């Protein structure tokens, strides 16, 4: 399970290629730190490997995504193992994150046994606090009933499962954009959720850092593949006045980032399998690639690692 990573640990210091390879094979997470209202991200592998303690920050939390427990096809025949490796990485962090955010597609087919496996494996994680939003794979046949029963216990969820909470002065908003999708359309939040969102942020000061998380990107990544949310503009309109807004998504199984004014959009990698860069394949289905090709493909996702003094920020400056 963790052999690959352990072996890797004993080798050279992390370099970009090696790191990308690790990410690709092992699945990964992104650690977000909040300091002075500005979010910076740091890769898990980097933290674990360098052995550097986290800088003094107000808050740190971790995003994982798209574990797809139950998937067993060519692109990754053992997604449970790679999910475990991702958790090992979290456990190896010198300073554990305050909590995790899972941005959806916990399972492949919304099966109870898939959720069971996920829950069982997650028990090994030192960090126990996890906040979820559903992916379309988690709500396949029951409109998300099972998902809601299992994963919303610690929040005051509304409607089909959206909610907000505060941690250390940061306002977190978990949104659902994978239900009641319309023919020909994209991800969707819907009027009820949008009205709730407007009211939810109304009383907040503009200097409150806001973190929004949802499965499907809340920006239009590639509509031809459904990689976007039809009414996300309205949601972002309610957040316009805030000085720091960070939008964390999954769904597309690759790191992409865009900064627009005070809003940083970021998509996380999957812990299960990669998907092609927008428009580079006939469909967005699981990407089957040999190990040696994998690195270069991930290298083409236009991710730049900009090293700061204390943090390795992930900023995709090439995404227009």
């Amino acid at each position, binding site marked *: 399970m963790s052999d690959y990573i352990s072996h890797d640990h004993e080798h050279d210091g992390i370099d970009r290629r090696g790191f990308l390879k690790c990410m690709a094979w092992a699945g990964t997470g992104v650690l977000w730190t909040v300091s002075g209202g500005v979010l910076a991200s740091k890769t898990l592998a980097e933290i674990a490997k360098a052995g550097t303690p986290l800088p003094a920050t107000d808050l740190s939390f971790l995003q994982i995504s798209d574990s797809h427990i139950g*998937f067993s*096809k*060519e*692109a990754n025949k053992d997604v449970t193992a790679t999910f475990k490796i991702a958790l090992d990485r979290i456990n190896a962090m010198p300073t554990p994150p305050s909590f995790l955010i899972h941005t959806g597609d916990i399972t*492949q*087919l*919304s099966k109870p046994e898939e959720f069971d496996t996920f829950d069982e494996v997650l028990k090994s994680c030192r960090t126990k606090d996890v906040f979820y939003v559903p992916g*379309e*794979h988690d709500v*396949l*046949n029951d409109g998300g009933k099972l998902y809601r029963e299992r994963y919303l216990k610690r929040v005051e969820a509304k409607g089909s499962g959206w909610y907000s909470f505060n941690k250390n002065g940061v306002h977190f908003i978990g949104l659902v954009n994978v239900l009641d*999708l*319309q*023919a*020909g*359309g*994209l991800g969707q939040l819907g009027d009820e959720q949008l009205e709730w969102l407007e009211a939810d942020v109304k009383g907040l000061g503009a200097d409150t850092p806001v973190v929004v998380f949802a499965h499907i990107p809340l920006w239009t990544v590639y*509509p*031809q*593949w*459904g990689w976007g949310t039809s009414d996300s503009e309205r949601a972002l309109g309610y957040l316009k006045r805030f000085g720091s807004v960070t939008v964390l998504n999954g769904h597309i199984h690759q790191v992409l980032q865009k900064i627009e004014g005070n809003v940083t959009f970021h998509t996380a990698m999957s812990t299960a399998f990669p998907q092609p860069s927008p428009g580079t394949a*006939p*469909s*967005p*289905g*699981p990407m089957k690639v040999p190990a040696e090709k994998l690195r270069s493909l991930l290298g083409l996702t236009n991710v730049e690692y900009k090293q700061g003094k204390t943090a390795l920020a992930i900023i995709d400056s090439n995404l227009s």
Partner: protein
Amino acid sequence: MTTLISRIRITALLCSISFSSLSALAGETKDAGGGGAMENRIEIKDFAFNPQTLKVKSGEKITWVNRDEEPHTVVSVEKQFKKSSALDTDQEFTITAGAPGTYTYFCSVHPKMTGTIVVEK
């Protein structure tokens, strides 16, 4: 208006609360096997229904088969026939064409995927 008639084998009982315009349900979800000789087949591949538009005669069977590694569904836009459950790789879903007309459908997991069935007399 009578419409396409569908039935999901496993959930036939559960789903027997039919839509107002539907009569008997007659479809099924199963793993792809031999396949009927004269069936009208729609292959789901690369996140698309092929053919995207299918003409059939009333009373004929229509079978979708998922050849992707992603789960897909078959859902009538106007709720004119029973929707399929999520079809995993190589699973099939069959309905029987009802009254003549044009029926649009989509995949509720990937709503960009749409298709049309034209039922002729």
